[in-house]
């Protein structure tokens, strides 16, 4: 909502400065978004007189002008405009002037060898409307040296407020003036609106043709004919006000409707009476009907929309836009003025469906003042008579203005209860009355009746808001929220704690946390097991952000590839975030995933051979994560293979059983990466945090007793020969089962294939740690255990000692 200061002052008698007005508007909830003050912006531009213009000695298209800028001494300016000529009055900007349109500051310069001390300006350079083919041409009467903006009457600041959807009443300058007056910034100029004298009955009838259940769609329509008008340009003051807020003046009749839309938040429509056939009927549109509207487009209508028709068909889309055929132009001599009430929801629906945004729709869908429907018609009639002449008919009224007033039983204590501030009932009542509320009651309670122009007022909380808004929300004293006694208790849920610990653990692994979009492309989703219809956006913002992600991996893989394209080949990224299996509440899971590409760890280093990230880097990340989350991994099974986006021979499923899968690790399938244009190989893991077993709840924090042995542990190494395809994990398990009491650790320290090992076999070096319990082990006892280890390994995995 925009308006010029002079327009506001027509309704508000105030001595407040622009700054005070702007500050007050924001303070009472009419937030000022922008103040366009041309006088300030254009202060340096002056009226200038071109005393002499000669062709530039070195350039055909330039002229050297001697310009009187009011300082007495003529200034030399080189100008490229075709209309620069001797005797012209125009606008001059001295060196140092900032040119808003070009975002440059004028400097003294030499143009093709001739000195130039300033610039003669076009309208565009001043960011004002006008011809841009040359420099501004001013009448001869313009006094050289005058500040141009002042001389041209451009020193009327335009204020733009960010109107919240609840404040329909402030969609008009008058409403804004009322709010400012209520806030104590002046006096509202209330003028009585007298009904125009009807000289003859209106020849056009109006019918509201609605079924009983639809009557709310068009409760009331007032119409009046003014005949014998002369339609031409509207007066300068009206044109200036409209132009200042960015509206193009068209002709007096149309300008009057636009003017009242902004002045009183009362949209109106004018029909050229001679282009209207017979009486008007207001009804639901019929599917298949269409209208060539004032925006020059033909709109297809349906029965959810309300239209105004005559004998020839649809003439106007109610409350949204009029039709081209019955519009007013300079030929119009007889005009029908319409002022109506429409259903806000229906107008919003129609506007949205047709994609029409108009100042009328904006106001109707927020709710206009029903009580002003008829006064609005009178005011418009008066303006037509004043500006275009003619004589008015008696009005035709169809339907009735609903006079439903919201009455709220309001205990004055409510302000204290909700706002925490004490405002005396008397003071509160005064504030409300200034806003147009009526109050009946005593010091305790009141019946508060909302004014007709405030459809947003529904209940007690709204009244509190009105009181506090004018009192100043900023004056509400800050009050400490009572704290619970003692130390603040822990508040995070298990999943919240897991997400946090997961992030720290993975960052501790040297991975960098990414946050990627929750939506991915269909290709990405499908490549990672997603793409379900129910997880597709109906209105994606971009084709590659169309499906809710089924996994964190597509986003991470794409992120890694973007970094590769930046020349950063070694990548170690992770994300902890939501993934989507279906659109239900339960279909959302919390996952932690990581990808590594290129060299792992610290990268190339003089002290060690660089290693490429592989499935084991991913396994380390995954296992570190599980450890950090305190998940007991003794029952964890690592089963070769995974879903089809994993490399079939270099990946594994992490599970506590076939139906308790918690995630995967390994290399991603080369075909998956190829399909997404990603340069692999990429090692990755993904763990679904919701699927991890919950920690066992224990009554105390006491840990199991620590049993320490005084006897030294001892270690024995074994080199086994097994089939190349045998799983080291099975061998470790077999070795461990040889003596569950004494064997405390089994680890693989070497895997070797090649010379010295038969074809198709591999050698696996296993270190076994024995912890004697009650006494030192004798050589014979150690021998016996070693033998048992070899036997178990042989029995369960076919291993033989090397």
């Amino acid at each position, binding site marked *: 909502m925009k308006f010029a200061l002079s327009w506001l002052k027509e309704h508000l008698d105030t001595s407040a400065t622009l700054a005070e007005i702007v500050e007050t508007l924001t*303070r009472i*909830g009419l*937030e000022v978004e922008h103040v366009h003050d041309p006088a300030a912006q254009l202060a340096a531009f002056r009226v200038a007189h071109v005393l002499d213009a000669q062709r530039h000695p070195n350039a055909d298209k330039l002229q050297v002008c001697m310009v009187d800028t009011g300082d007495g001494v003529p200034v030399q300016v080189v100008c490229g405009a075709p209309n620069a000529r001797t005797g012209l009055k125009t606008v001059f900007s001295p060196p140092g002037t900032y040119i808003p349109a070009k975002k440059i500051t004028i400097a003294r310069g030499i143009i093709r060898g001739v000195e130039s001390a300033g610039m003669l300006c076009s309208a565009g350079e001043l960011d004002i409307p006008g011809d841009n083919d040359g420099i501004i041409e001013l009448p001869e009467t313009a006094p050289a040296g005058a500040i141009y903006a002042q001389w041209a009457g451009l020193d009327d600041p335009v204020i733009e407020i960010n109107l919240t*959807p609840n404040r329909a009443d402030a969609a008009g300058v008058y409403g804004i003036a009322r709010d400012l007056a209520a806030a104590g910034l002046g006096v509202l100029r209330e003028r009585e609106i007298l009904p125009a004298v009807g000289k003859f009955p209106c020849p056009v009838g109006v019918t509201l043709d609605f079924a009983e259940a639809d009557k709310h769609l068009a409760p009331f329509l007032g119409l009046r004919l003014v005949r014998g008008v002369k339609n031409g340009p509207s007066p300068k003051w009206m044109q200036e006000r409209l132009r200042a807020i960015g509206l193009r003046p068209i002709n007096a009749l149309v300008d009057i409707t636009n003017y009242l839309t902004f002045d009183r938040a009362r949209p109106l429509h004018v029909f050229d009476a001679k282009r209207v056939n017979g009486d008007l009927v207001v009804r639901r549109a019929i599917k298949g009907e269409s209208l060539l509207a004032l925006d020059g487009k033909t709109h297809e209508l349906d029965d959810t929309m309300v239209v105004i028709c005559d004998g020839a068909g649809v003439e106007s889309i109610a409350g949204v836009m009029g039709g081209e055929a019955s519009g007013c132009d300079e030929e119009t001599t007889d005009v029908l003025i319409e002022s109506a009430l429409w259903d806000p*929801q229906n107008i919003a*629906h129609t506007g*949205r469906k047709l994609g029409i945004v108009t100042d009328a729709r904006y106001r109707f869908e*927020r709710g206009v003042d029903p009580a002003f429907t008829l006064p609005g018609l009178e005011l418009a009639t008066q303006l037509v008579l004043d500006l275009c002449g003619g004589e008015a008919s008696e009005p035709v009224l169809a339907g009735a203005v609903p006079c439903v007033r919201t009455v709220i039983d309001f205990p004055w204590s409510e302000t*204290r*209860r*909700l*706002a*925490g501030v004490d405002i005396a009932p008397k003071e509160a009542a005064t504030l409300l009355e200034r806003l147009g509320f009526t109050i009946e009651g005593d010091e305790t309670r009141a019946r508060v009746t909302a004014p007709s122009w405030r459809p947003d007022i*529904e*209940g007690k*909380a*709204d009244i*509190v*808001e009105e009181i506090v*808004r004018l009192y100043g929300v900023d004056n509400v*004293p*800050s*009050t*400490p*929220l009572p*704290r619970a006694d003692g130390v*603040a208790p822990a*508040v*995070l849920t298990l999943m*919240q704690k897991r997400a946090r610990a997961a*992030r*720290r653990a993975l960052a*501790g*692994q*040297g991975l*960098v*946390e*990414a*946050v990627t*979009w*929750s939506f991915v492309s269909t290709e990405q989703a499908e490549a990672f097991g997603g793409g379900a219809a*129910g997880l597709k*956006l*109906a*209105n994606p*913002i971009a084709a590659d952000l169309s499906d*809710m992600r089924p996994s964190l991996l597509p986003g*991470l893989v794409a*992120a890694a590839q973007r*970094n590769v394209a*930046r020349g950063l080949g070694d*990548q170690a990224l992770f994300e902890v*975030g*939501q993934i989507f299996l279906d*659109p239900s*509440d339960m*279909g959302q899971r919390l996952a932690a995933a990581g990808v590594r590409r290129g060299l792992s760890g610290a990268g190339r*280093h*003089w002290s*060690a051979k660089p290693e490429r990230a592989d499935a084991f880097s991913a396994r380390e990340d995954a296992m570190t994560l599980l450890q950090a989350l305190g998940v007991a991994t003794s029952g964890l099974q690592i089963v070769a293979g995974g879903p089809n986006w994993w490399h079939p021979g270099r990946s594994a499923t992490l599970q506590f059983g076939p139906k308790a899968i918690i995630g995967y690790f390994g290399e991603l399938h080369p075909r998956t990466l190829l399909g997404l244009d990603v340069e692999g190989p990429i090692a990755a893991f993904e763990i679904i945090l919701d699927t991890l077993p919950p920690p066992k709840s224990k009554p105390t924090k006491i840990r199991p007793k620590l049993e320490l042995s005084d006897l030294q542990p001892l270690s024995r190494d074994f080199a086994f020969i097994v089939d190349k395809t045998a799983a080291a994990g099975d061998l470790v398990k077999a070795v461990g089962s040889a003596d569950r009491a004494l064997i405390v650790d089994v680890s693989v320290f070497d895997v070797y294939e090649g010379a010295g090992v038969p074809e198709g076999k591999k050698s696996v070096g296993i270190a076994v740690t024995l912890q004697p319990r009650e006494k030192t082990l004798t050589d014979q006892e150690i021998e016996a255990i070693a033998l048992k280890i070899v036997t178990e390994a042989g029995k369960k995995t076919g291993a033989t000692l090397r």
Partner: protein
Amino acid sequence: MTDIATLEQETLRQIAEAADEAALEAVRLAALGKKGAISALLATLGKMSPEERKNEGARINLLKDKATEALAVRRAELAEQALERRLAAETLDVTLPAATSPLTRGRIHPISQVMEELSVIFADMGFAVAEGPDIESDDFNFTKLNFPEGHPAREMQDTFFLTPEAGEKKLLRTHTSPVQVRTMLAQRPPIRVICPGRVYRCDFDQTHTPMFHQVEGLVIDETTHMGHLKWVLEEFLKSFFEVKGVKLRMRPSFFPFTEPSMEVDVQCRRQGGEIRFGEGEDWMEILGCGMVHPNVLRNCGIDPDVHQGFAFGVGIDRLAMLKYGMSDLRAFFDADTRWLEHYGFRPLDFPTLAGGLSS
């Protein structure tokens, strides 16, 4: 006796001249070993008369002591020399770089860090952390929050819809307010929660991304009013920006789910591309808030004449930008590792009240 004096002289000379441990050991064996010269002298004592033994015994034992001591001294000298030689050989180029630790490479995303900072601050004020799904129903995202069907307020938030399956039309939540609804439906007052999470709006330019993060706060009890709201916001912002104090400016505004509604500006100083809070003459709009609308309370089964409270909402990404100085929101979701390394946090940068939110 001359031979003892000679032996002493000879032994001490050999000890002094021994060039290394092995030579010294040979001298020791030759003198004090089983068959050593001094040992041999000692063996002669048994055959002597007590008178002789008394005399000779003292001399021989003195010789033995002298030799033993000289051996120890020489051994220590040799050990010292050997260590010196070893040290002279043991040098390395300490300017060679060590391998970096994963702890120096890993990073926490600023959004995660700020979320943790928020939960630390609000946990202290007794707020729990509530969460809910990103895919929501129209009812929880709009209707229960007092957005009437067809009301222009719904258009304030450009909503992403999911392709409708058989059944209800789902959408991506446009704010975390549906979590407030879920909390109020699940829990009786008193309620104190913050609801952080991802939210989605169909908007993409320099200052808008189709996905961003928000934290909302909700307090419902029988006494909480706007003054408490103001205090909580002051404490929160002061603590979050880690400044001694902040000045807030509240302005009336409109949100369908609060009444009265307010926008809050925070006092700041803009200086050379930097923003400082708790000082200066400028104001920056930072969050929206208000008293929970009676219709919302009613929709969630709470009697607005008995219970009351406030709600507020603020962008987490924006808080991160204001506190840590990132200029472009889009970079948050681009996963450029150069950006993440620069703006990210180290793995052990835990925000705490005792140690401070940031280091």
